[in-house]
């Protein structure tokens, strides 16, 4: 942070009276030119698709004719028109999935990180095995769980149940939650573990000397110090689940109202070849994710400040 301020200050001071040196201006110009390639790459791979999707979303889909400009018709169709049922169902389902999986993954991932952070024999083995699910590509994991959740699959055998996991709304919901948590709790564990490892041991020793209990040092030391790592993990996972695709697509293919925002956008844009309406749905998803990320980020940061001042 400090170095950044210094650097920024110097550039800003460049044209000022104190240091109107030709060198500083040349440096700024050089910086500009050096940034150009990055700017171009970002424009091509990020700005163009986003702008193009928004532009497309303002046009009609004409499968065998020519499409025309229709303004916000596609958005109206998604929010209140013929697409509303499908859209809101996917919206609610995606949001529910996000809330439940992120909370579960945080709790389980945090516990995993605490265990991995302890020094004990075989720690390396535990760390490696915890990370295995994360190393499996999502589509492969989804196929694996598809077979686990079949009527005579592993899940029913192990728990001695007879649930048709993919045949009703809520069982499908939990099937997706379980598969996703299995897959990505290790990711949270990894980020939290990194956060835990930068907390110096002396702090805990000092707390011990002062007579703090394990619970107290967890609440007053571990939690506040690891919080920023947790927020990063939370944001990452939230963004991921809001655009979840592979798991529901493979496990249920959207049966029993288990479409997510990404699966309906894919189905419209690619399967039905409705690029405009598909773009509309992805643009809405995009905006929703930005708003959600912004809200969570500012709430979490405010909380950090509060905890810090209280502590």
């Amino acid at each position, binding site marked *: 942070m400090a170095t950044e301020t210094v650097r920024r200050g110097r550039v800003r001071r460049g044209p000022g009276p104190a240091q109107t040196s030709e060198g500083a201006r040349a440096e700024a110009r050089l910086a500009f030119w050096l940034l150009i390639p990055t700017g171009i790459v970002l424009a091509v791979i990020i700005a163009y698709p986003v702008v193009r999707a928004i532009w497309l979303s303002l046009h009609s889909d004409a*499968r065998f004719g020519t499409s025309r400009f229709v303004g916000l018709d596609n958005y109206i169709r998604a929010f209140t028109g013929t697409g509303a049922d499908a859209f809101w169902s996917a919206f609610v389902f995606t949001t529910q999935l996000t809330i439940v999986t992120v909370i579960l993954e945080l709790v389980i991932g945090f516990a995993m990180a605490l265990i991995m952070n302890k020094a004990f024999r075989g720690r390396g083995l535990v760390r490696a095995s915890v990370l295995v699910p994360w190393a499996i590509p999502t589509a492969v994991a989804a196929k694996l769980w598809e077979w686990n959740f079949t009527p005579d699959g592993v899940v029913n055998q192990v728990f001695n149940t007879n649930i048709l996991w993919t045949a009703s709304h809520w069982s499908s919901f939990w099937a997706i939650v379980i598969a996703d948590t299995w897959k990505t709790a290790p990711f949270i564990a990894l980020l939290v573990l990194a956060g835990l490892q930068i907390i110096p041991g002396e702090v805990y020793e000092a707390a011990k000397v002062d007579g703090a209990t394990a619970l107290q040092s967890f609440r007053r030391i571990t939690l506040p110090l690891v919080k920023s790592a947790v927020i990063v993990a939370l944001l990452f996972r939230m963004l991921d689940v809001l655009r979840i695709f592979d798991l529901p697509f493979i496990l249920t293919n959207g049966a029993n109202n288990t479409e997510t925002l990404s699966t309906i956008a894919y189905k419209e844009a690619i399967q039905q070849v409705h690029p405009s309406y598909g773009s509309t749905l992805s643009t809405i998803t995009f905006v929703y994710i930005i708003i959600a990320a912004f809200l969570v980020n500012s709430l979490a940061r405010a909380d950090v400040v509060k905890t810090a001042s209280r502590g």
Partner: protein
Amino acid sequence: MPRRLVKLGFIGLVAVLVLTACGGPDEGGGGGGGAQGTGPITFVAGKDTSGKYPAVINKWNTAHPDQKVSMIELPEAADAQRSQFVTNLQAKSDRYDVLGIDVVWTAEFAKSGWLLALDEGQFPVNEMLKPAVETGRFEGKLWAIPYDTNGGLLFYRKDILDKAGKEPPKTFDEMTALCSLAQQNNIGCYSGQFAKYEGLTVNFAEAVQAAGGEIMTDNGTKVALGAPATQGLTFLANGFKDGEIPKPAITYMEQQSQRAFVAGELMFLRNWPYVYALAAKDEPANKVRGKFGVVPLPGFTGAGSSSLGGLNFAVSAFSTKQQTAVEFTKFATNQENAKEMVGLTGNAPAWPALYDDPELIKKFPHLPVLKEGMQTAKPRPVTPYYQEVTTAIQENAYAALQGQKAPDQAINDMTTKLNEIAAQGG
């Protein structure tokens, strides 16, 4: 300045090469149907899981060294294949010459202007299976030639029926009457594929056809459905309600249903012929080896009618070597190569004569039964909006099977939706 000379010479050489290259291919051109241009081409199709293409491609390449065919493999899943085709053809790319397309895509691709209309006189379509050839037609023109075809069969437990002295069923009523036998043996009675995916459309279409109905007619401009559709869907929905179709079947796709049958958990299974080889395999997990048989699909009053699967060959409208592409299509789909393909895969040929071939029957004893079924098989709805149509069918049929909608309500809703789709026009 020798360097400059070399440069000039090089440019001259290139110019000569380019000019001769331009002059070459257009001569002859006489393939008819407006197909022109020869040279090396690409053949594009889904992943070749059974290794059937290399033989025919090699044979062609040896005979036509200047018009070699190279294969571009697309993903195995039909959805992923289609999106590759759509992306490529929408961009009017000439990278794909001969297209191996699913039978249900013909109308959409033809209407989009992506396929070359084929000259009927050039292909022996009159000698091929009529229903299979129909899948290559749209709005009165021929767009694609069947490479292989496919029809559903009813697999049944011969051991159980024999023990009870019963014949395999020809109608749904006969089949339902036999369900008590399944109950006695503590296994499920009947299943097809009822998960919400393309297989459900196939099974629904067969139920409608079993009652003598159709889903859409007139190139997808008219919705037929009506009473036969309600009868068909009611049969399936009641099957679930009364337990003749076991509950897990609502999650079955081809593989899961085949596993259930092979594990000895089902008495009757509607599936594609590929199950035959698996059920005959000597494997510990296989509980039905030597204990099963096949018959054509049952109907309500007599024989049923299968949905058609299979793969057609078509020529891209954007190919610059259409003459070669047409010739290769003719070659790859001819009877001799079809026989080789059937020998390798056991897939259903588009040539009626091959079903009676003793050599093939020895290897695939189900061929005669399959032939019987193929005569009455029907294409799934022929419509350029196939994806929308199949989605609407799955949506409503699934709701009825789950008991969330009464079958007649589901058919009403389906009819409304299909009418909307048909009415959207250009």
